[in-house]
């Protein structure tokens, strides 16, 4: 039911536009947004920024493209997700200009579901069709020995699994701009690839916790009464266990890989969202528009998720941004404590933990840079959340 119409003057500004304008009024918010955008760009394009394979190289007269040939399944999935996410944002900004107000909600749902399906199917397709490959050739040695020429390397010409024990524990110098770690891997390269890990943990964990929290909260809040009573007991039970402890308990007993960590963080932090959504639903279910929807005979899930939920979603969005920063912090903390995905994955927290060597030497470059990365990312998301909350709250206008 989407109709492409010129924006009518009687449409006015949508709520989203109001929030956006309030949001960008503060330059701090804009800086955070730009920082996050750059971080996302770096995360998506990581193999193009830091890789031991060159973009192009001429061996025996023929041109090869090792970097592109060496892209793995995970890389393609990330590209797909990034591209589709970017497309979704564009669509979002176009919605308020191109569509009539009363079809925007439906259009947004449809776009979200189409894009999610594209991502899921695309990832599945990638996993089925593209095989993992391994390229162990030392291109730098080839160039140095003269067997190859015309090589263009990435800005940071190191791979994140590369080791070079001859240059381990080196402070920042000309070859390694941010120094090397305990096996000679370049710190800047690992930071860049680590951004992927952190951001993906943030998004997936928050996605899981939001979905679970919204569904649980919606049911509890809508039905009220006995369902609410027993449901809240359950929620309180899960809430009563300190989350961090629950996470490390679960991590101790299940195999350690990145997906496991994402899922565990998501599964242990949904209670906050559930409470918020429940409160909103308790308030909203008595409103007229809900009664109207029910009397029209619409099915329950329709009423819950297409009528009530869009009105109660704002605290969940704010919580989501704080959740992302929280998930990034938890993942770093877990990797720091040794419960992370393993020493081969370039997690920021794991790099931070190697900042003090076993002999007590303080390796400042291994403490400063990963820590700074975590700090700035968490700070950006927190300020984003704060700015969003202030923009959404009509009471917090500048004049008291």
């Amino acid at each position, binding site marked *: 039911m989407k109709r492409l119409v010129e924006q009518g003057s009687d449409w006015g500004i949508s709520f989203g536009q109001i929030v956006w304008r309030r949001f960008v009024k503060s330059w701090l918010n804009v800086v955070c947004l730009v920082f996050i955008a750059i971080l996302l760009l770096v995360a998506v394009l990581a193999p193009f920024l830091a890789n031991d394979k060159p973009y192009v190289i001429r061996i025996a007269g023929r041109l090869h493209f090792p970097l592109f040939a060496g892209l793995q399944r995970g890389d393609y999935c990330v590209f797909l997700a990034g591209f589709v996410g970017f497309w979704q944002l564009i669509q979002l900004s176009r919605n308020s200009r191109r569509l009539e107000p009363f079809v925007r909600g439906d259009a947004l749902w449809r776009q979200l579901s189409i894009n999610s399906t594209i991502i899921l199917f695309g990832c599945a397709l990638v996993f089925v069709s593209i*095989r*993992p*490959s*391994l*390229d*162990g*050739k*030392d291109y730098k040695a080839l160039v140095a020995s003269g067997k190859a020429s015309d090589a263009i390397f990435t800005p940071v010409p190191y791979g994140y*699994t*590369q*080791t070079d*024990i*001859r240059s*381990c524990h080196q402070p920042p110098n000309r070859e390694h701009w941010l120094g090397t770690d*305990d*096996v000679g*891997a370049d710190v800047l390269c690992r930071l860049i690839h680590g951004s992927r890990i952190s951001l993906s943990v943030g998004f997936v964990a928050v996605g899981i916790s939001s979905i679970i929290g919204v569904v649980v909260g919606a049911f509890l809040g809508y039905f009220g009464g006995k369902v609410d009573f027993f449901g809240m007991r359950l929620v309180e039970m899960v809430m009563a266990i300190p989350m961090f402890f629950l996470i490390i308990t679960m991590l101790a007993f299940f195999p*350690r890989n990145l997906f496991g960590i994402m899922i565990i963080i998501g599964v242990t932090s949904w209670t906050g969202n559930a409470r918020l959504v429940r409160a909103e639903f308790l308030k909203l279910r008595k409103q007229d528009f809900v009664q109207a929807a029910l009397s029209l005979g619409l099915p329950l899930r329709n009423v819950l998720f297409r009528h009530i939920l869009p009105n109660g979603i704002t605290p969940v969005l704010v919580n989501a941004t704080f959740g992302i920063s929280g998930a990034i912090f938890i993942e770093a903390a877990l990797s720091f404590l*040794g419960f992370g995905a*393993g*020493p*081969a994955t370039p997690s920021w927290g794991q790099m931070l933990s190697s900042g*003090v*060597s*076993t*002999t*007590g*030497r303080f390796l400042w470059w291994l403490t400063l840079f990963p820590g700074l990365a975590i700090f700035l990312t968490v700070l950006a998301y927190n300020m984003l959340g704060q700015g969003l909350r202030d923009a959404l709250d009509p009471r917090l206008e500048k004049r008291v």
Partner: protein
Amino acid sequence: MRNRQGIAIFLLFFLLLIIILLQILSMVQSGRLYQRINYLGQIVERTAANAREEGPEETSVTDGAERADEGDRLVWAFRVEPKTLNPISAEADIYTTWITIPYIFEPLLTHDYDQEKLKPCLAQRYRISDNGLKITFILKDEICFSDGAPVTADDVIFTYQTIINPNVDAANIASQLTDITAVRWVDDLVVEFSLKRACSKSLDGLTWVWTIGILPKHVYQFHDAQEFNRHISDPIGSGPYVFQKWNVGKEIILRRNENYWGNKPKLEKMVYRFISNPAACIQALRCHEVDIVIPEPEQFADMVNDEQFKRDFYCLSYWTPWTPFYYIGWNQETAFFADRRVRLAMTHIINRKQIIKHLLREYGMEISSPFYVFGPQNDQTIEPWPYDPDKARELLDQAGWRDTDGDGLRDRDGTAFRFRFMYSNSYALYNRLARILKDEAAKVGIEVIIEACEWAILSARLNSRKFDAYIAGLGFNTPKDPYRLFHSSQTNEAGLNYVHFCNARADAIIEQVGSTNDDEQRDELYRQLHRILHDEQPYTFLFTRPTLRFVDRRFENVKVHKMGLNYLQWYVPRAKQKYK
């Protein structure tokens, strides 16, 4: 008007902040003051340090033994606190053994410090029957435990029977004693053991059995095995030191046994402090809070360049037959490592020389066998395989592993060469080695999936043979019995031959060793075994490390014997004694 009130609140806030700051500063100041006073006090007590010889091999002044030099303490810094002081317990680890044997408990025979053999301790002599299947120990006369009770054959029998009691939590030690079929009381001071296999004159292969500390029956006897299992502290034995106190989490204190039946040591107390952080250990040493520390190779390499440090402390680095070695085990039941050429290729891609140079800072040595690198069982003519990735590629090609589908990974019969490499995350060095292996393997077309896990999981997987490759170390208080590690009968779930090494010639040699009494012959057989292991590479033997110690220079008689340090000989001249 508003502004004035605002200022008041502001001042209040400020005042609070200043109070907190003052509090913190005063804490800092008084702490530093105390440190300073203590440190100055120690400087005043000590005499100026003499210039001594530098170098890793340290020798000291002669064996003066004056009664006037009794006293003082030796304070150790242990990284790990032992869980029990009962050496007959599955919970007893290397630290328990270091503390209790031979200081609190004494065995029938102990290791000699200058020769690799056993010398009498509680037993004055022993007699092996002609067929080698019976060994009789005669205990010394008039020896007693620290509470005065005499040491008799009953205690020996009690000790051994307790170990094999299934209700006693000592299953791991009991599994070592399977070669003993019976223990017989002959006399108050005579015990006879019956063995399954003949033992050699030097008691090789069963040395560990005779060095189990003897527990006094009258103290440790029990009705319910749980009583014994819970008896983890307050040990009473016959040794030169007596247990004094265990401040859990902080230290264990032993004091000298004034009723000791033998030569009493000079040092009055042995204190073991638990400091888990390696950097904190060195710091404690420099502050003279501890006297002896076991440093990491990197710490040793750093400190050895510090002249001031060397003047205050001995920097000892020495080799003994018990130094641990590290190895990678390749599971020969997998498709990958069943072929000897593949295992050899994997050995060729590990650059042991560079690892020793950069990760161990030269405090290590390449090895090619599980035997002590300077011992007679190690064939000195065998050179470890060199780092040669090109040779590795050749070998892999020969074994049929080629990249047939163009994805960069070698494969054969449709299986890609991708294996899981497991290790215990308790030792930081393994992390680095794993990443290095992953990188080097990628260069020859093999993908390694690194799995760090807790020790408990690793051992479970090893037991159930569900692994591809792993890295571990083999250390001190275990008999390096080739039978258990390499004989093909041990490849079942109950054995230690985790890598499924089945080689008929090796089996024959091992069996021959079991039936040979002559030490020369046994050594020659071991050398042959070494050659087989070197050719077959069931393990890639990585390296072995020297024993490293930092010791406070006030101790005299710190002599590095062939078998290590003999703490019972140390003393501190009265003038330099720190603890009264």
